[in-house]
């Protein structure tokens, strides 16, 4: 399965994504500079984390106008799989490929730590290798991960079962303490209505091997491979 990772000025998890896909999952990866428009015929596009354009104006606000994002939007419109991680999630929201926005963390701090997320939906190309309710240990590293959406939008997310992962405690309970950044309804990641675009703040790219503290990120990558191979649930 062919992956393409977009690279913006200020991306800093592009090589983490490249490494986990190539070295851990054994798949070919192309790196696509933000000024390019040819995605090189991928099966899945990864929009990586980092600080594109220095987070100027709003996180992801300027990156969304990079030439490559027009190609990513076209690819998504045709049903291609797109995963946005951390700053990639912020970019996908700014681009309108996912609803809502990521605000400053409630405590105003940059938070870099392992968190637990509960898989709410397994009927997506990104979580089909998980069990419903499964708890994954995956790190976060962000200052703006506080998911916000208006009440009508939140209801729509619930009705269409687009809330894919929520912050939880190690036992899978949703508590205020386990929600690190103040996200509405403990939302850590969502998909679009067509379920082919997924954004999340936690880093499955930084949790692909035990030496990194957790290999739970592999469930996300394995799901994508399942889906592309037609194995998905």
């Amino acid at each position, binding site marked *: 399965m062919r992956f393409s990772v977009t690279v913006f000025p200020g991306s800093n998890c592009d090589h983490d994504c490249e490494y986990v896909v190539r070295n851990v999952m054994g798949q070919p990866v192309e790196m696509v500079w933000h000024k390019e428009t040819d995605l090189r015929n991928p099966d899945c596009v990864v929009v990586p984390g980092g600080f594109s354009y220095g987070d100027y104006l*709003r996180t992801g606000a300027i990156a969304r106008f990079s030439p490559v994002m027009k190609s990513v939007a076209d690819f998504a419109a045709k049903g291609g799989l797109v995963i946005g991680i951390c700053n990639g999630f912020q970019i996908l929201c700014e681009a309108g490929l996912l609803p*809502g*926005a990521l605000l400053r963390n409630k405590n*105003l701090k940059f938070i870099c730590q392992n968190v637990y997320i509960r898989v709410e939906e397994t009927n997506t190309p990104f979580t089909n290798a998980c069990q419903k309710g499964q708890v994954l240990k995956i790190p976060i590293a962000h200052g703006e991960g506080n998911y916000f959406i*208006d009440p009508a939008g939140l209801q729509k997310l619930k009705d269409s079962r687009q809330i894919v992962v929520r912050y939880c405690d190690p036992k899978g309970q949703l508590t205020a303490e386990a929600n690190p950044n103040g996200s509405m309804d403990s939302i850590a990641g969502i998909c679009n209505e067509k379920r082919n675009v997924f954004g999340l703040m936690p880093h499955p790219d930084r949790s692909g091997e035990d030496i990194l503290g957790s290999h739970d990120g592999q469930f996300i990558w394995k799901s994508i491979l399942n889906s592309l191979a037609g194995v998905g649930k």
Partner: protein
Amino acid sequence: MGWHVSVYVTLKPSVMDPQGATVQRALNQMGYKAVTGVRMGKFTELEFDGALSEAEVKKQADEICDKLLANPNIESYRFSVERK
């Protein structure tokens, strides 16, 4: 003579503003007990070619705010236009 556009972007009232809340607490602790609310926003100045009509400047400024300077999910904006 060009056009000078002052743009104010603010978080919508329904959006939590932890930065504003922190500044308010600081002001209250400094003794400004009468300050009952602080909302942080962004101020941007745009300079336009003076050959454009005022209507055209307003139209472009509106587009710029909608497309880039404000995120309509969370922010609202207003601007004023003057000759400079």
